[in-house]
């Protein structure tokens, strides 16, 4: 593919050169948002963590995001009295070779001066990013690609999800790193999944992650198999789950990772998104964008998002490619959709041809082409409290 990436000091390559403005508590959110709005630059994105007391998960996520390969520079917005270790986060960004500035609103003298200082910081950091940019040839083997689904319907399991599975096979064969998740929607697939594990330790980790998801959903009282599923033709829990699981394709599963853990070698990974410990409240992820943010924290350069009824979201930092399996959604919401897997229904496409189209679009987007959600200005971001134990050593592939 004909693409140039942005080389980072850790050897990873970005497909974008984004300046992120990150608020470190909700109290700094407004000033940060104003800075991004007034900068009026599509390459300046807003991210942040709203809590006053970040836990380990939030700290790991923010560290992973400020050093994401698509990020070239960082402006931190602090109120001043929140507990986030802003010096530590700034040092992490600086040590990763990225220009960084921190605005403390209480020291700046309030909202107005923080916004003015922030806008000047954006200008300086942008100039430094331009000086530091190192462009290098980019290959599919440099890419980390995630997949999630949202707004699924009866077409998702027939067209969009298996087509993404075909694309994942092509990407893995080209040396890319691919990540799938939503263990809570794969209950009943642990048997076939474990068979695909590259090592016995990874097989054990897969089975344990699904058992954890099952316990979590049962404790919360969330059933997965609903009457509407049966009307749509699904006959069993494992059939419904297989429709989500098929996004993973058919290649060996080389590792199981948790949010903010980075794959250490190419291949296909399962991202375990269900919190560890006692189930506490709500769904493991508060919305589809929380899943995308976790994918990014694992290094995903872009996300393949399958939808039936039609999600419109994009993301800060990493482009989102939306694949709809429903031809009606393509007709109604084509402005928001990148790939029409629904063309399989009229015979003008096949699972294999859509899979190849997805890979071609991944290459184009990696080379700089805008996705529909990028062009529409979608820059969603959400980060909340969750908790995880670190993964065991057997969860990663063995690297010679």
């Amino acid at each position: 593919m004909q693409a140039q990436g942005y080389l980072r000091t850790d050897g990873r390559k970005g497909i974008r050169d984004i300046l992120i403005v990150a608020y470190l508590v909700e109290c700094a959110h407004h000033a940060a948002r104003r800075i991004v709005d007034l900068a009026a630059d599509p390459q300046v994105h807003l991210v942040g963590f709203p809590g006053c007391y970040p836990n380990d998960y939030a700290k790991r996520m923010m560290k992973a995001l400020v050093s994401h390969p698509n990020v070239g520079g960082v402006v931190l917005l602090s109120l001043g009295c929140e507990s986030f270790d802003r010096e530590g986060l700034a040092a992490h960004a600086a040590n990763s070779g990225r220009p960084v500035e921190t605005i403390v609103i209480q020291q700046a003298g309030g909202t107005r001066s923080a916004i003015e200082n922030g806008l000047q910081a954006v200008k300086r950091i942008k100039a430094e990013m331009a000086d530091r940019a190192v462009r290098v040839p980019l290959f599919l083997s440099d890419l980390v690609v995630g997949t999630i689904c949202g707004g699924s319907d009866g077409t998702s399991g027939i067209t969009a999800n298996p087509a993404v599975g075909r694309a994942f096979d092509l990407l893995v064969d080209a040396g890319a790193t691919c990540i799938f998740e939503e263990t809570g929607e794969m209950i009943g697939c642990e048997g076939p999944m474990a068979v695909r594990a590259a090592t016995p330790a990874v097989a054990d980790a897969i089975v344990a992650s699904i058992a954890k998801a099952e316990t979590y959903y049962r404790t919360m009282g969330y059933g997965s198999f609903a009457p509407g599923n049966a009307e749509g033709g699904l006959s069993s829990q494992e059939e419904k789950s297989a429709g989500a699981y098929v996004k993973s394709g058919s290649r060996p599963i080389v590792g199981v990772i948790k949010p903010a853990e980075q794959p250490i070698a190419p291949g296909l990974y399962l991202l375990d998104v269900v919190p560890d410990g006692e189930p506490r409240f709500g769904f493991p992820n508060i919305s589809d964008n929380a899943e995308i943010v976790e994918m990014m924290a694992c290094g995903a350069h872009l996300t393949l998002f399958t939808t039936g009824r039609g999600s419109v979201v994009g993301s800060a930092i990493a482009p989102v490619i939306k694949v709809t399996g429903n031809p009606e959604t393509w007709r109604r919401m084509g402005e928001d959709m990148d790939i029409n897997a629904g063309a399989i229904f009229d015979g003008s496409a096949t699972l294999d041809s859509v899979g190849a189209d997805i890979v071609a679009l991944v290459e184009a987007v990696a080379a700089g082409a805008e996705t529909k959600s990028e062009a529409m200005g979608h820059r969603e971001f959400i980060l909340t409290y969750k908790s995880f134990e670190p993964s065991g050593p057997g969860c990663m592939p063995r690297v010679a």
Partner: protein
Amino acid sequence: MAPAVILLHPDDNVVVCCRTVHAGELISVADVEITAAETVALGHKLARYPLPAGAKVIKYGASIGSMTAPVSAGGWVHMHNMKSDYISAHLRDAAKG
């Protein structure tokens, strides 16, 4: 031409309807021709081959349950003649003691 059904994996013994398929419709699926036994809607499954009771139902190349009654090729496969084989993790653990 708009396909009536889709074969999601070469190992599958069911196909999935891409539109409403009418009773008596002749449908070719890779290696075989089947006749739809009844009218079924998009997303529902038809047997690719005759399946005896107890046979695993294979979709996406993996088992999605077992037949509880036999079905002929082209017959509708759903909850009236197949069942889930899934045993949830906590019940499996309980069975192990």
